[in-house]
Each structure stands twice: as C-alpha cells, then as structure tokens.
C-alpha cells in the first residue's frame, strides 16, 4: 500500500518536475522570442528584473500612454540631480548658444545622420505634460516640448533587427562611469518618447539637460538622458560597456525603470 503510494508520488513528482522544467524552458524561449528579457537579466536579482520587465511589456504592449496633466498642475519646483557637465566641448557649445551642437544618429539605420537644434525644431513639434519621478522618491510635473523620437527614427530608417536605442550624453559629472543609457524599441517608438528641447514653454534649462534630452514618459527619470550628443541603434547591447544596457545597471540600478 505504502509502496504503491510512494511510487505514485514519485511518478507524480517526477512528471510535475519535468513539466515545470520544460515549462520554464518554453517560457524562456518565448520570452526571448518576444523580447521580454532585459539586458540585466543575470545575477542575484535577475529573475525579479525579468519578471517585472516581461509583465509590464505584456501589459503595456498596446502603447499605453502615461497620464497627462493640465497646465495648472505643472510643478513650481522642478528639482535636478547635479549641475550641467563641465566637459570642455559641452561648455564651448553652450557658450555658442548650441548653434554648433549636433545629435549624431548611427548604428543599425539606413541613413546615418546628424541633426542640429534648428533641424529638430523644424520637425513636427509635440508637447506633453507628464509626471517625472526620480528613483530617489521625489517627483514633479512639467510640460515638455520636442520632437517625437519615432519621427527621427522614421527619417533615419531603422533596421528591422534593431532592439535598442542607445543614448550617450556629454558626461554629467559622475566619473568614473562613462554615462550611457538604452531603451527598447517599444519605448523608442512610443508617442510620448521625445527628443525634448523645451520645458514649461521655454528652452530646456541647463540643469534639465540643455540643449536636448530624451524624455521617456513611462519610466523613472534616470532613463530620460540629458545633454544628448549621440544616439545609436543596435540589435544588442552586449558589447557596450559591461553589456547591461546602461551605466545605471553597472552601478546597481535596474535597466528597466517602468517600476
């Protein structure tokens, strides 16, 4: 009797384990196939990062829009973390009113290009009044003006195998880390992802990332890279830095910050 029971138990447990393992295998293949695995999926916290990213990508797959607010909701105080870069090139560009500033766009694109501030301002203008939260906990609402990143992506012709848009700023005083960040293509094509050159009706103020910053509405503030100089489109971030998708993951922060 007990022999039978234990054998049955053994078979059930074996089958359940096999089903579990193959289920996980299938899930991993499907997750990879549908781009649900973040670059920082390894390590102690990798399982949590992957579950959060995959779950949110599935939930937001229809390009859900971040909440928009009224002009009267705009915060009077909009804090920043740290001053503009002391980088020599940046200082020279700033002194010249950013006339000579260019955004270089290269990588997996049909037409590598470089855009001046005037070019970007000539493109169709979009605005959004959205909430931006810092990972530390504070937040503010501001109106951002700029060009949708999707417009620029269409201009340069993104290769179908592209998976990430990678952004490099002029260093903003955080050595020894070379600053960079990346977003996936769903966020890159998202209608609220801007190359923002204006804030609250004025030119983008220095400490907020002048002349142009990225604005990613559905993620924490550290994904909205300031002081942009270059964007490159890639099919993998493995060979950039430590391969984790940004300098923030290299110092322990999550690559995906939809929270």
């Amino acid at each position, binding site marked *: 009797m007990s022999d039978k029971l234990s054998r049955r138990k053994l078979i059930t447990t074996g089958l359940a384990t096999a089903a579990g393992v193959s289920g996980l295998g299938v899930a991993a293949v499907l997750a990879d196939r549908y781009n649900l695995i973040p670059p920082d999926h390894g390590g102690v916290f990798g399982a*949590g990062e992957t579950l959060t990213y995959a779950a949110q990508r599935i*939930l937001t797959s229809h390009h859900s829009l971040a909440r928009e*607010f009224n002009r009267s909701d705009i915060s009077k*105080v909009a804090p920043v973390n740290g001053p503009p870069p002391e980088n020599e090139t940046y200082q020279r560009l700033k002194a010249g009113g950013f006339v000579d500033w260019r955004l270089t766009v290269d990588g997996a694109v049909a037409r590598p290009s470089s855009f001046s501030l005037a070019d970007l301002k000539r493109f169709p203008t979009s605005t959004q009044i959205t909430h931006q939260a810092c*990972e530390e906990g*504070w937040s503010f609402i501001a109106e951002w003006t700029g060009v949708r990143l999707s417009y620029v992506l269409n201009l340069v012709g993104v290769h179908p195998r592209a998976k990430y848009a990678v952004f490099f700023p002029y260093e903003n005083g955080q050595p020894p880390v070379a600053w960079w960040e990346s977003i996936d293509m769903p966020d890159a094509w998202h209608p609220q992802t801007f190359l923002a050159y204006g804030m609250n009706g004025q030119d983008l103020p220095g400490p907020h990332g002048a002349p142009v910053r990225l604005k990613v509405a559905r993620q924490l503030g550290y994904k909205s890279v300031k002081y942009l100089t270059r964007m490159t489109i890639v099919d993998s971030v493995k060979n950039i830095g430590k391969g984790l998708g940004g300098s923030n993951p290299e110092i322990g922060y999550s690559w995906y910050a939809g929270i």
Partner: protein
Amino acid sequence: MAESAYLPGVTIQDANVLDSPRHSTLVRVTHWIHTLSFFGLAVSGIGILLAHPRLYWGETGGVGTPSVLDLPLPFMLGGPSSWGRSLHFLSAWVCILNGLLYALSGLFTQHFRRNLLPGKADLATGNITRVLANHLRLKRPSDAESNSYNVLQRLAYLTVVFVLFPLMIITGLAMSPAITSVFPAIVIIFGGQQSARTIHFFVANFLVLFLIVHVAMVCLAGFKNRMRAMITGQATAGKDLS
C-alpha cells in the same frame, strides 16, 4: 517517539495530531516563504526610503515643496536605493505569487471561512471585551482557547490578508508610470503618485507593527509549541511532547 511505541494511547493521539495538523502543509510552507519575502521587502523598503526620507501628498513632491512627514533620517544616495529596489521587486514577486497561492487555497479549502471569519458569538461585545482584557493582562490562553483563533486574531489576520497587503500591492503599483499608463485609476483613487507612496509607507508600518505583536503573542502563548506547530504542523495543546 520510543516511549509512544509502548503506550497505545499516546500513539493514537499522535496519529490524530498527524491526521489533522494545526496548520496545513500549504499554510506552513507559504507562511515561511512569506516571512522571507516580507523580510526582504522591509529591509529593501527602508533602503529605498533612505534615498529620500520625506513623504508628500498629491501628485508631486520634493525638496522645496511642503511635505507631510520629514523622517529624522539622513538622505542616503547611491547605495541602498539601487540594490534596495532590485531586492524589493524580487521579494515582491515572491510575496505576491506566494500570497496568491495562499489566498486562493484558503478560499478553495474554506480555511478563511472556517478558521478566520468571526462568528456572531465572536463579535458579541462581551466576547470582544473579554478577549481584549485577556490580551491586555497578557493572560496565557487556555488549552481550549488555543485550539482556535479568538476574535482579535481573526480580525487581525483578515485585515492583514484582505486589507493591508492588497493596499500595499495597489499603492506599490500606483507608483509605476508604466502600470498607471494602463490602469490610471489605481493612482487617481489615492490622489496622486506621492499620496500612494505615503500610504505605502504607513501601511508598511502597520504591517511591521502586526509582525511585532504577532511574534510577541507567539512568545506569550508558548514559543516552542507555536513554532513547532508552524514548522511541523503538530499541535501539542497542553503537554509538551518533546
């Protein structure tokens, strides 16, 4: 055990105990997984809070705007909020999946209805006053009393399971710009992202308070017996068989 082999009476009692454990296997396993995940959530929650130990009401808040609570803690940037957030989310996944398993099985097996939902007699004012008085006098429960949950336990557990934890989950999700882009209502009902953060903080405090009282009561009711009951499932009402 060797003793019981010679004493049929004790053997039978043991068998009864094994047949109907004080806590089911599922309750025991989920209890300890939950303990681990709650510890991870609490530690990492403090880590995240330390990056900005000020709480606000409404949609926005930061240095230079009015706060509802300034905790007398240092602003610690860099460290604790980075690994803190990763640990917080990993623990939250464990907590939620484990909690779902516990809640669904509790509904399915009628554990909540039979063992936690207070009856009419439980809710009588006289009974509540009596149980409350016993608690305040730190009176050890009698054998008969410790065989089931008293009204205060029932209400406390139900509140934790069906009010506080769901509130933690919703206020947590309400802080996510990605989640609220799909379900804006979950942040609007709390009056804004910073309000959700503040409520998340206060509910966390209630949960920690519950934990302290919970552990204190376990100690008061007999730490060894209660721990054995939650680990092996064996209730030893009255005599300690060890």
